[in-house]
């Protein structure tokens, strides 16, 4: 029976798998660059629409946000990828991931941004409007910068979660980092590629984790 190191930290296998995993990393990064901006844009739309005084607008939004925050993203992905074809709608793995992440992320980012906007005192809005700024300009120049600053730790934390969640795309055979690692694992009958993938995630995310904890600390101190 092979030893622990040979099994989980087999450098030879890691070296062989590395190019393949880096390719997977490329796909992961592309995915992040797609789903994070889309999610933030969707979340911003949710947060802005939520300001509507009409209950008919706010109600469906609350349902939307609650639903997609409660719905497990893995199930959502499988449903979009494997379930929709039964309804006669055929979408590829990439589209399924893009849609699934958009629904999930816009709900989460929407909540964060809504809290941010609500944290800006009403007087800021009124001061801006009283100088003749239109509602969109008052939002863009006065409210949003303060809103984002107030919830920056939550935004960064949420984005970290999204990066980690992109590994879910492996279940619909999108060749991102984890998928590449699992393929390498099944080819080599050795889990070292998975360990290598974990190391890559760690190296990739650690600076952002540091940043997050510094932001959180700064928010606490400034309070």
């Amino acid at each position, binding site marked *: 029976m092979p030893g622990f190191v040979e099994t989980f930290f087999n450098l030879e296998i890691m070296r062989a798998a590395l190019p393949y995993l880096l390719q997977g990393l490329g796909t992961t990064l592309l995915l992040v660059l797609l789903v994070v901006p889309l999610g933030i844009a969707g979340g911003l739309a949710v947060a802005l629409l939520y300001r509507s005084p009409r209950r008919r607008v706010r109600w469906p939004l609350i349902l939307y946000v609650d639903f997609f925050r409660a719905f497990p993203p893995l199930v959502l992905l499988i449903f979009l990828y494997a379930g929709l074809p039964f309804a006669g709608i055929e979408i590829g793995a990439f589209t399924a991931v893009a849609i699934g992440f958009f629904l999930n992320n816009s709900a989460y980012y929407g909540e964060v941004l809504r809290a941010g906007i609500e944290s800006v005192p009403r007087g*800021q809005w009124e001061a801006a409007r*009283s100088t*003749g700024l239109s509602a969109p300009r008052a939002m863009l120049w006065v409210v949003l910068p303060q809103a984002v*600053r107030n919830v920056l730790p939550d935004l960064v934390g949420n984005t970290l979660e999204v990066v980690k969640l992109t590994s879910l795309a492996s279940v619909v055979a999108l060749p991102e980092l984890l998928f590449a690692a699992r393929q390498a694992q099944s080819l080599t009958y050795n889990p070292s590629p998975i360990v290598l993938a974990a190391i890559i995630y760690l190296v990739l995310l650690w600076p952002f984790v540091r940043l997050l904890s510094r932001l959180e600390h700064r928010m606490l101190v400034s309070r």
Partner: protein
Amino acid sequence: MQREPPVLSIRGLRKSFGATEVLRGIDLDVRPRELVFVIGPSGSGKSTLLRCCNRLEEPSDGSILFDGTDIRAPGTDINAVRRRIGMVFQSFNLYPHMTALGNVTLALRQVLKKPRREADEIAAAALARVGLADKQGAYPGELSGGQQQRVAIARALALEPKAVLFDEPTSALDPELVGSVLQVMRDLREAGMTMVVVSHEMGFARAAADRVVFMDQGEIVEEGPPAAIFGAPQHARTRAFVDQIVRH
């Protein structure tokens, strides 16, 4: 001078929040270069009156003419009206993420579409006018309350308003900082600015107001020159209120 049309002309103004009527038919004219001082107990509707004048609060009924424009008419561009009515708030409401200069230039650039150079020049002049020429680069958090309120006044002045509304501009200030803000307001009056001031600074009212308006429970109970309102009020409610504040 009496024949000049009023800058602000309010008729039958009513405002309700839900079932409570906060303004119950206000009639008020403010003439050019006049300083109208509004007093009244807490909750009498003074802030609501000012906020209806630029529709930060939507009036329930009545008419408001500002510089000849019916601000409640469907076709009125409210943003165009607002930039000609300055508003100064009790809590300053400076934008904390912008410098003093940035606070003043924002509307110049975004509303009046001035190029940066020109906006900066106008803003610098406005800050100099309130005695803060050397604070252009300071953030609100680095300024005293009195300095912040003067930046807020500069922000309003830079748009060359036809009138400025002040809602308790000195109430949030430490006593030793009140003077600097009142001095700026006095200078403004000297320069002929039309002003409506809600405040408890009776000394300022006596010295600078053309007219004092006493409000209670959403109505104007009495108005007249400061000497008359403070010295010989006609109504019992006015007398009670004036007695109370003079004693303090």
